[in-house]
């Protein structure tokens, strides 16, 4: 029986009746108390019922790592797969079943180390997947080795003298890999994260969301420079499409270009608001430029770096199938068997 025939015989549940409780499971949550993962889970559970999608049409695929336990705690179809390969499995699900809403939950080690290849290729193809990467800049599940996003010099069990690895910039990587939606959220920033998740969910194409996540056991305070109540206003740059890049308690600071086209922090009053850069989610170069604003020299951009639409991989494959079917002469496999040079033995 084909999936299409099967689906035509069942009726979907009513998505408008869903609430966050419908997405919780009875499984005991095994993250460490205080882990940033809890806040992200709560935000996702809050976002899903608002999308107008029947619960049975969600699929969550994860790899390996602390973040990858996510599917066990989310009452949808889910697969806790193998290290780094979640984007490949999710791609297969989406290609066969464009009717489903397919999500990948991954971490910095899972997505950028062992799964780096799949990560970039999923985005290059613009498969309609939502990829949530929990970035805690450490290996948590294996108990505290440096990760591909750990800062250089980080002392861990596997780098007692400090890591000599240069880290990846995940947003730059995603943009270079041509992701059509790229955003950053923070575990403790419920409102900002919720907004980003909702836009990612509604985006048609690969949506990549980097979520800063505190691992209070092995890398506690990694994002304090950004999330500390006192530092926040100065350290965070909220991205808003069409708005000048301003930050500070009262928006008194901004980002402008110097004569060499390098970014500089300016005093808005002195420099003039009209000379500030204006965010444009459709400008690829600007998106990349913003991804290079790194603390402590610059405030950390949070929100949507890039959002553009272009045909998706799954959509284009569907279109090719449709076109081929419409030209088909019928006759199924027997026609292929009978084709070509044949002869008859009496």
């Amino acid at each position, binding site marked *: 029986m084909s999936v299409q025939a099967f689906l035509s015989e069942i009726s979907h549940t009513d998505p408008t009746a869903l609430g966050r409780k419908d997405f919780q499971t009875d499984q005991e949550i095994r993250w460490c108390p205080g882990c940033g993962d809890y806040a992200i889970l709560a935000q996702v559970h809050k976002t899903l019922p608002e999308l107008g999608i029947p619960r049975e049409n969600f699929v969550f695929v994860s790899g390996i790592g602390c973040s990858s336990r996510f599917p066990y705690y989310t009452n949808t179809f889910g697969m806790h797969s193998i290290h780094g390969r979640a*984007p490949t499995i999710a791609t297969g699900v989406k290609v066969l079943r464009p009717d489903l809403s397919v999500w990948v939950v991954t971490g910095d080690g899972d997505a950028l180390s062992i799964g780096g290849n799949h990560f970039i290729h999923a985005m290059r193809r613009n498969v309609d997947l939502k990829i949530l990467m929990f970035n805690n800049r450490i290996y948590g599940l294996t108990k505290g080795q440096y990760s591909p996003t750990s800062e250089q010099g980080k002392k861990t069990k596997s780098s007692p003298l400090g890591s000599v690895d240069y880290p990846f910039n995940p947003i730059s990587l995603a943009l270079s890999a041509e992701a059509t939606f790229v955003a950053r959220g923070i575990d403790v920033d419920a409102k900002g994260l919720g907004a980003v998740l909702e836009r990612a969910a509604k985006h048609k194409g690969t949506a990549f969301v980097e979520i800063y996540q505190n691992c209070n056991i092995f890398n506690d305070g990694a994002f304090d420079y950004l999330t500390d109540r006192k530092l926040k206003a100065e350290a965070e740059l909220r991205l808003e499409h069409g708005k000048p890049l301003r930050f500070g308690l009262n928006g008194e600071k901004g980002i402008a270009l110097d004569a060499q086209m390098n970014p500089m922090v300016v005093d808005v009053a002195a420099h003039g608001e009209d000379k500030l850069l204006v965010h444009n989610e459709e400008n690829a170069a600007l998106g990349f430029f913003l991804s290079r604003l790194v603390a402590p020299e610059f405030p950390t951009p949070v929100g949507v770096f890039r959002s553009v639409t272009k045909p998706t991989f799954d959509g284009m494959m569907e279109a090719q199938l449709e076109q081929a079917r419409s030209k088909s002469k019928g006759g199924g496999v027997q026609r292929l068997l009978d084709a070509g040079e044949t002869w008859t033995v009496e």
Partner: protein
Amino acid sequence: MENSTAKSTTTFESVAIRFAGDSGDGMQLTGTQFTETTALAGNDLATFPDYPAEIRAPAGSLAGVSGFQIHFSSREVHTPGDEPDVLVAMNPAALRANIADLRHGGILIANTEQFGVKNLERAGYTSNPLEDGSLSNYRVFPVDITNITLRAIADVGLNQRAAVRTKNFFALGLVYWLFSRELTHTEQWIQGSMAAKDPLAAEANLKALRAGWNFGDTTEMFAQRYEVPKARITPGRYKNITGNEATALGFLAAAELSGLDLFLGSYPITPASDILHSLSKQKHLGVRTFQAEDEIAAIGATIGAAYAGGLALTTTSGPGIALKSEAMNLVMMLELPLVICDVQRGGPSTGLPTKTEQSDLLQVLFGRNGESPIPVIAASSPGDCFYTAIEAARIAVTHMTPVVMLTDGYLANGAEPWKIPNMAEMPRIPVKFHTDPATFKAYARDEFLARPWAIPGTPGLEHRVGGLEKANITGNVSYDPNNHDAMCRLRAEKVARIARTLPPCEVYGDAEGDVLVVGWGGTLGALRAGTERAREAGHRVGHLHLRHLNPLPDDLGDVLRRYRKVLVCELNLGQLWFLLRARYLVDAVSINKVQGKPFKEAEIARAIIEHAGSKA
């Protein structure tokens, strides 16, 4: 061409011809044309294309030699033939690479134009073998193929390069004449397919073909012709088919028989890529093909498709299996239907990519961490790949398990005449997606111990699966030691139980006696022919060719004990042999080689006779 001069004609039962030349000489095309014409003439036949390992080996070098062998007969043909009776050598390298195989007394046709000093040197000759007497064991026919062809097509007006390229059709025409074949089929092909692409080249090739035929007919060099009468073949409609084509068609048929949508995730690899090429053309049948970024992604996407309710297939060769093994283990744990088709090639590592071998058996059986039972079946001839593919798909969806289908480079590229199956007569493959939330338990089991297939989109069946150990029935994560022990045994039993659905062993030849020849996969032809020869020599020999390698047939142990000696013949260093000894405590003997080449009929016959004769 109907009026041939009166030259005498000798009749043979079987003939093997090998066309050999530089990779640019069109030997594969020549061989294919000869094969089609021979099939139309009513012979049984088997072919063996031998491609150069390097894509751009220098012209005239040994590394660049391409060959095509066809064995045709008025009897049943099992193999492409041990030693060709005729060798067509288009240059010195082709001669040097192939002459050792030519039967003593066999016919050698050599293109003299190519035997200049430079080419002789390139092939490693210090003197011209056509002149130095070193070929005195053969009947040598030196023909200036290039120049006669050029004269024959001079008026067509092709440039020199293109004109020289028609010489393979001259050679083909000459061999057609020699074996009393009609030109009609090739003429039609040239005037049809070739003319549509390049009318000028078609005109020249047609002239070259006829010139070759006429040359044979008029020159005094060839005093006689040969013929091989029609074979007795089961009535029906036939076509030539390679193993890779049959594999692709088999999975298409499995999709139609099950109603499932076929999904192929693959990464290009020799010698499996042609399956990807074939299936990529079948979008009109709803086939989705996904060329992944690597072998792991290829099976990863396939797992996604299996999970989502498709007929999931990934194709590869040995090195790809090594990369896929972690994902194969995941599917085994997920208990989802998925077929991994391994077109084996010479290993280890990159090994001999274009050569054949059967050395992935233990890898697919045991090459994963933990206790990881996966059914394995193997195709035994190019046409059998079709039925093996359907069988693999049937086991996968009926028993909810990954299945490995083994073929090899020899089957993949080799062709045989194949009776075209009738889809209407083939049994359906029943598939049921679970729907009832009230009875749903992700790891509940049916009489085969198969779990339900619960696909996304089904209301009320939301559940989680993964690579961590599951609690029996519920499928929830479990670290309980007794549960793990029980689950490992359950998964093993699930695969073992497939044996209940299999037919008993079918032994060819003597049902008991001196020697049982046991083989699997692409060696069927050579083992059958070797067995026939040994039986003709008066020995009591049976031949058992295994299709199911995991689980093995239930009655295999009994069959093995009915013979004084068991010979396990494989193109590896004794992998099935190792298994049978361990499993059945039989003192089996391993007959093996790993030369990248199929067994010869004679070497199998020799081994059987040797062991049948030595009374224990």
